[in-house]
């Protein structure tokens, strides 16, 4: 028995099976996962690892185990999507921990949430005084949402009645020295226009450019490979890293 080749084949099966299953399960980010979903992901990963290297048992039972955890997760996702009640039962509900500047001790106790945890999470939201908080909610995913009292909220352009058009997304025009012609066409621009713009920045060829993009206002951003930054202006920590 050639264990190296067996692990190679089983590794390929586990890797791509996991890739297919996770693609089907969706694109939730780690920060959006509930504690249970986080554990689910770890377990599924662990089974895939065993499928690869545990040669003391055949690959099939591990694959069945992997499939069952994937199917149950998928069923749970679909059920919680269809029924709000079941979703609340399985995943729990967001809990209000501060109301009108007052800490709700009962809720904190139920969640086994310490005051130091609460203060830390408030600080992460740039709140250093509990009295500024109108409502603070501990979400199902464990993240923290804070609504400050209106007098402590940041002034926005709409508060000042200032109108500004939406900025929209930038479009990449050059990536790693390569001109992205389809993107130019989408913006109704030509390669000639791009070359003219590059010339204005003393750039003879797109290969000198690491990244270039254009925003919805028509402003061009260009980053060259050679940055011409005075090393004296780099903070010491980064300068040291550069030397390494």
């Amino acid at each position: 028995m050639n264990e190296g080749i067996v692990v190679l084949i089983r590794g390929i099966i586990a890797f791509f099976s996991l890739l297919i299953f996770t693609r089907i399960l969706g694109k939730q980010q780690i920060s959006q996962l509930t504690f249970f979903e986080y554990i689910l992901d770890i377990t599924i990963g662990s089974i895939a690892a065993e499928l690869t290297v545990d040669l003391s048992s055949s690959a099939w039972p591990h694959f069945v185990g992997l499939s069952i955890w994937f199917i149950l997760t998928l069923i749970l996702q679909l059920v919680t999507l269809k029924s709000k009640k079941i979703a609340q039962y399985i995943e729990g509900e967001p809990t209000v921990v501060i109301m009108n500047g007052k800490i709700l001790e009962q809720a904190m106790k139920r969640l086994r949430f310490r005051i130091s945890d609460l203060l830390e999470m408030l600080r992460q939201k740039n709140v250093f005084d509990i009295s500024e908080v109108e409502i603070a909610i501990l979400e199902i995913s464990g993240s923290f949402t804070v609504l400050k009292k209106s007098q402590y909220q940041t002034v926005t352009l709409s508060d000042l009645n200032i109108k500004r058009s939406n900025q929209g997304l930038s479009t990449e025009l050059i990536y790693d020295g390569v001109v992205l012609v389809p993107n130019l066409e989408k913006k109704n621009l030509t390669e000639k226009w791009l070359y003219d713009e590059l010339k204005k920045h003393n750039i003879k060829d797109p290969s000198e450019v690491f990244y270039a993009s254009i925003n919805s206002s028509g402003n061009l951003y260009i980053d060259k490979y050679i940055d011409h930054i005075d090393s004296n202006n780099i903070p010491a920590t980064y300068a040291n890293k550069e030397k390494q």
Partner: protein
Amino acid sequence: MSKLMKYFIPILFLVVSVVIMLSSGFLKNAFGGKEIPFILDEVMVDVKNDNWNDANNKVDEIKKVYKKISILVQFSAERNEIENFYHQLAMLKGYVEAKQEGEAIATIYLLKEYWDELGT
């Protein structure tokens, strides 16, 4: 990539993976593997009739066939299942060379059991 290919490639991959993982059941009968239980029966008859030379040759023949089979089933069978058969075969060879009838017969039954369990 067309929608058909987008779904076809992962489904094909999963199907091929499942076939590889379940292949030992039928691969163990390829390349003369099907004959192994019958050869074991013949070894038992030889042992009982004191044909030790024939029994020895047949044990070598089983080892030769099993070497090919073990390469085929290694992706789907358990490592211990594959190796146990080798170990017991080595013991059988020893018992046949030492002309120990009882131990040889017991080992043949054990080998049959291992063969039945291989890849199930």
